[in-house]
């Protein structure tokens, strides 16, 4: 058989198999060339910059480059006793060079991050170093300030030798490397980041839950009503979906403020006293309410598109077999909607976990999320490497959720409206 198939030739005298493979390859290349422009564009402007964030987040070359001779001479120093004369000489030379280039300020900031107290002794050293005599730098430097004679400070300098560091990631989880190189947590009252991570998860989880509880009944109603009514009601879902996020946030700011419509209503029905209006904005409540309303359409749409495909005869069959409406719903209808629930929850959870605008406007101090912290470090403290590290930690979380979802339900079930 195989010899016969090999003999089938095309009109050009090339075996059919070869010719087919060639055509196949040509098609593959053609398809790939169509995708190539966008792929290339995204790789350059988007995927590589995310890689750049990774480099930035572990990058610690700044100090390494500022004190090259010092770190070279420190290689043989075990860190138990005071470093030898070469180290002092190398440090003196490096430092003089930095002073000439006016970069010693940066060094003192960086070293102060590692150990408090560097700022003042570096300033003092700069002043005194002008009058240093050649040779015996160890004694001259140690005489500047008693901390220069403290081996702890030299160890702190040595810790900055590696060009890469995990310290930004540790800081993101409120941990740091202590003097012995062990990873420990910061004091309990200074663990701000853990609080933020937990709050982000908590808010994303409850917003998803609230969205699910509210979206399920209305998606069901939309899917079961006759077309002419459901189209009308669908507008209530789609109009917020297409409306600017800032407009929707603005409307919540108007509604929830102390003299706002919701508070007016509460006063009118006598729920609260006029002089005791509750603060509903600039705290967690504001974040919850606004985010739930804003993300609700993202839950309704996938649920609706799944429910639309469920035939009503299934429910009738269940009932005719003796199931009460509740049992039929629970045993027949609900399991069929699980792909929609999965898609909706995934979408809402992932959108919620990275939310920035709404919490920043209505969240106040107690309702802000991890994204706000990232933006804060990007714009205010300019600690871009820390912002990168936090961003990548968030991204890792999001990708993990996607991966789990893909294993459980399959990513192809996501639809857009």
């Amino acid at each position, binding site marked *: 058989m195989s010899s016969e198939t090999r003999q089938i030739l095309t009109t050009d005298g090339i075996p059919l198999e070869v010719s087919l493979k060639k055509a196949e390859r040509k098609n593959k290349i053609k398809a790939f060339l169509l995708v190539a422009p966008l792929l290339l564009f995204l790789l350059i402007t988007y995927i590589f910059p995310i890689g750049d964030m990774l480099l930035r987040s572990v990058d610690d070359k700044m100090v390494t480059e500022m004190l090259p001779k010092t770190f070279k001479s420190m290689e043989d120093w075990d860190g138990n006793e005071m470093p030898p004369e070469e180290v002092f000489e190398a440090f003196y030379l490096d430092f003089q060079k930095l002073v000439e280039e006016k970069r010693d300020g940066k060094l003192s900031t960086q070293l102060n991050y590692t150990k408090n107290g560097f700022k003042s002794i570096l300033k003092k050293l700069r002043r005194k170093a002008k009058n240093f005599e050649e040779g015996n730098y160890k004694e001259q430097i140690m005489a500047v300030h008693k901390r220069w004679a403290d081996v702890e400070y030299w160890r702190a300098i040595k810790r900055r030798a590696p060009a890469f560091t995990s310290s930004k990631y540790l800081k993101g989880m409120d941990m740091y490397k202590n003097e012995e190189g062990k990873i420990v947590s910061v004091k309990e009252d200074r663990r701000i980041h853990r609080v933020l991570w937990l709050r982000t998860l908590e808010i994303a989880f409850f917003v998803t839950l609230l969205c699910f509880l509210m979206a399920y009944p209305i998606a069901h109603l939309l899917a079961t009503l006759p077309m002419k009514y459901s189209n009308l009601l669908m507008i209530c879902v789609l109009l917020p979906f297409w409306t600017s996020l800032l*407009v929707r946030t603005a409307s919540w700011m*108007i509604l929830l403020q102390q003299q706002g419509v919701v508070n007016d209503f509460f006063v009118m029905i006598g729920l609260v006293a006029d002089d005791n209006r509750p603060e509903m904005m600039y705290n967690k409540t504001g974040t919850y309410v606004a985010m739930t309303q804003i993300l609700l359409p993202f839950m309704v749409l996938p649920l609706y598109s799944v429910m639309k495909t469920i035939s009503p005869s299934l429910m009738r069959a269940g009932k005719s077999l003796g199931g009460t409406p509740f049992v039929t719903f629970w045993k027949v209808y609900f399991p069929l909607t699980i792909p929609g629930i999965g898609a909706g929850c995934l979408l809402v959870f992932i959108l919620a976990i990275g939310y920035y605008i709404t919490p920043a406007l209505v969240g106040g101090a107690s309702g802000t999320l991890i994204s706000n912290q990232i*933006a804060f470090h990007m714009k205010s403290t300019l600690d871009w490497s820390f912002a990168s590290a936090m961003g990548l930690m968030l991204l890792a979380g999001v990708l993990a959720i996607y991966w789990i979802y893909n294993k459980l339900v399959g990513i192809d079930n996501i639809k857009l409206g």
Partner: protein
Amino acid sequence: MALPKYTEPHYRIWHYTYIFICTCVFFFLIAPLFVIFPLSFNAEEFLSFSEGMKNLDPDAFSLRWYKDMIYGTKNPWGLAAKNSFIIAIFATLGSVLLGTVAALGLSSRHMPYKGLIMATLISPMIVPLIISGVAIFFFMAKAGLAATHTGIILAHIILGTPFVVITVTATLSGFDHSVTRAASSLGSDPVNTFMKITLPLILPGVISGGLFAFVTSFDEVVVVLFLAGLENTTIPIQMWTGLREQLSPTILAVATCLIILSTLILVTAELLRRRSERLRGINR
């Protein structure tokens, strides 16, 4: 939703509870948008209903905030609107062009590594915006495109293409490839086939993807906050600054205009979706 006469009382109660819950949720969804309309006609400088408004006194309503929006001194809205439209239009064109071509390639059954490439192409939609913002900012700063229109347009193309890729691949999934083969067998070259046969058939998908891209760009604030300088201010940036600093009713006038715009977009998108379903032979 009338119930049959034989319905037992407790199911009847349950049914009306269900309708009541649904009504509340619909109210929760749509009502916040409508609070903006009346307040944007407020004659006073407050963002709550004045006594006059509650009594429907005509003097309590005015168009002063709309006038302020258009003619106000040192007013940023004109520049912002111009920038927003320029950026959104170019970003939409770019996204539609790149996205449609890529979707054509992705829908080919010869496409190698389809899953991986699809994941890469739609990643800007999956990655939280704040992270995209940081990454794009790093790129634009290095490329010298920060605080330029070009930079913002490129950023919005990145964010807009996934929507075009998704909608166009969805349209192409119901596409009958025998019509393009028929065109080729009749002697049409690939470009001609695409322009005369494929494009008219997938056009609803392309346009609705374009609408998504337009809205994404027009409403985008996180990435623009990182990228924009004073010259590149957009409507969302102005709203963001306004909402953070002083809530002036002018913002509500702008918001009303934006709601009207989104209503128009919604209607267009819905008409397109129905047309597309009809063309693809999906009858519900």
